[in-house]
């Protein structure tokens, strides 16, 4: 295990930021800490980095108890949402900073900087100041700076949060490829479920200071531990006692399937290749949302006021709406 977090708790006055967190992250893995803002995921990351101190619990990094170590001694690379580049230093100087602190020979520093700038595609900007770079370039610079000291773990706090949508997508793919190349144990914080699902080997869902679930992207999506995880990873609607995804609902124009729920189409909205239906169902206050393909909708010949029967598709991921025991329920 590269990072071992055991029983970590942190309070700010009355506010419980983290409550008894236990998680182990294997060496070389790319992990996402996913959750809503203020849920405690950044605090956990900062505690791993030594930028905050936990009130209780221990943090081991590479088998060494790092709980009391200052950030300087932990050998972690940290990347901030707003880059935190040294504005008065050139790109190359920024990358060299950690190596110069470690008093490495000049030639070695130079070679290492060149190698890293190559890796993050910033070689031609080596002598520019950060103010002459775009946001995406600055974040790549920050990443190169963090990697230069060959950290045992790389921690990224909402690394793409300040970038616009297109650059964010590019950098996300690039981070995945970079990780496959460098293989450093990496943890990144995000509130964007798509980002986590797309990039991470493993996702830790954190909410209100507690871990809701740990698992691979597929596990989380297919077998959410509870309605929170399910809701956080994608759109959710309610059909009778179950919460399920809108595309996991079968629509029929006749009462064929046993146990199917009758309803009336209130609204049909076409968005690109899909059709979103709002269906009023008896005995349920909020309407059911259904997503189906355009072809399918056309075949059913639906219009406003059409009577339909809804049932979960075979193999649909569902969880009970008032699921007091937090266990996944997979209906057949």
């Amino acid at each position, binding site marked *: 295990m590269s990072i071992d977090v055991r029983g970590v708790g942190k309070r700010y006055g009355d506010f419980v930021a983290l409550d008894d967190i236990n998680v182990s992250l294997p060496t070389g893995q790319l992990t996402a800490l996913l959750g809503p803002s203020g849920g405690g995921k950044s605090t956990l990351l900062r505690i791993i*980095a*030594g*930028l905050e101190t936990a009130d209780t619990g221990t943090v081991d990094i590479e088998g060494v108890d790092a709980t009391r170590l*200052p*950030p*300087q*001694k*932990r*050998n*972690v*690379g*940290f990347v*901030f949402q*707003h880059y*935190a*580049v*040294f*504005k*008065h*230093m050139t790109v190359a100087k920024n990358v060299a*900073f*950690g190596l110069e*602190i*470690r008093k490495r020979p000049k030639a070695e520093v130079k070679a290492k900087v060149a190698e890293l700038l190559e890796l993050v595609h910033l070689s031609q900007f080596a002598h520019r*100041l950060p*103010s002459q770079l775009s946001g995406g370039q600055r974040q790549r610079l*920050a990443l190169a*700076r*963090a990697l230069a*000291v060959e950290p045992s773990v790389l921690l990224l706090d909402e690394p793409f949060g300040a970038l616009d949508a297109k650059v964010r997508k590019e950098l996300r793919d690039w981070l995945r490829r970079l990780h496959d190349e460098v293989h450093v144990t990496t943890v990144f914080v995000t509130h964007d479920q798509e980002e986590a699902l797309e990039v991470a080997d493993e996702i830790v869902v954190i909410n209100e200071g507690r871990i809701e679930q740990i698992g691979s992207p597929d596990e989380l999506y297919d077998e959410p531990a509870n309605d929170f995880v399910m809701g956080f990873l994608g759109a959710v609607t309610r059909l009778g006692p179950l919460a399920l995804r809108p595309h996991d609902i079968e629509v029929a124009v006749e009462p064929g399937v046993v146990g199917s729920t009758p309803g009336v189409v209130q609204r049909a909205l076409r968005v690109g290749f899909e059709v979103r239906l709002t269906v009023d169902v008896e005995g349920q206050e909020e309407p059911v949302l259904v997503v189906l393909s355009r072809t399918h909708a056309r075949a059913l010949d639906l219009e406003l006021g059409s009577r339909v029967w809804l049932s979960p598709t075979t193999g649909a991921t569902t969880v009970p709406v008032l699921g007091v025991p937090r266990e996944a329920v997979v209906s057949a």
Partner: protein
Amino acid sequence: MTDTLVTPPGPAPTRGRPSGTAKSSGGLFRLTPTSGLGLGVALVWFSVLVLLPLAAVVGAAAEGGFGRFWDTLTDAQTFAALRLTVVEALLVTLVNAVVGTVVAWVLVRDQFPGKRVLDVVIDIPFALPTIVAGLVLLSLWGPESPVGVNIVNTRQGIFLALLFVTLPFVVRTVQPVLLELDADVEEAAASLGASRLTTFRRVILPSLVPAIAAGSSLGFARAISEFGSLVLISGNTPYETEVASLKILKFLEGDNQAGAAAVAVLLLIVAVLTIVVLDILSRRVARRG
């Protein structure tokens, strides 16, 4: 958070950079007859009050040609006064650059009861009339000093007076920059292995340098031209404790307008150079972003 009376002189902060409000370049109004008249009146008053008198100083200095101007300034007694002024001003500037930064640091980063009082105290030397500043110092370090130290007519006295009146400059230029420094950057340095001292030296201090330089040049300009606080303290002894501004007064009292004007022109040049230096500094900072 700093309630300050001191907006240090020098180019007003927003004027140096290309204004973000766009109106200043594109959406300017054309002069109407009324505003044109207003501009005329304003220019006449500004000329009568400022431009013509300053031109008269330059004119008086230039009257005897450059040779006479040069002779006045290199006259042994005048030169001694100028040298003393510059040396004292440089010393004070040096002390202020260090101490002012330390004071700003403590006021921003430290927390202790009474900090707000100290924050107000910084402004007092600037808010006090200069003659009162001199008197205030004499009450402690004068002929009737309760600690038995008399600085009247000594170079130490001049140094102390200049230190007093220039106290706010570096503090007040560095303070806002320190307040806005990004904590992330310091955390980044720490996680890269930098100790607190190294972080200060290599990351924080370079960000403060433009502000320290700006505050220092303001303080230097003030020290060079200081008059009021020195009148009571400097004994005006030639070669010993005579400074430039007092030399001007002496020339004037001796009916030597050309001599007074020559020294005054030198002080004017320093003033203009300061404005230029500050403008360059603020442009450089704006470029770094």
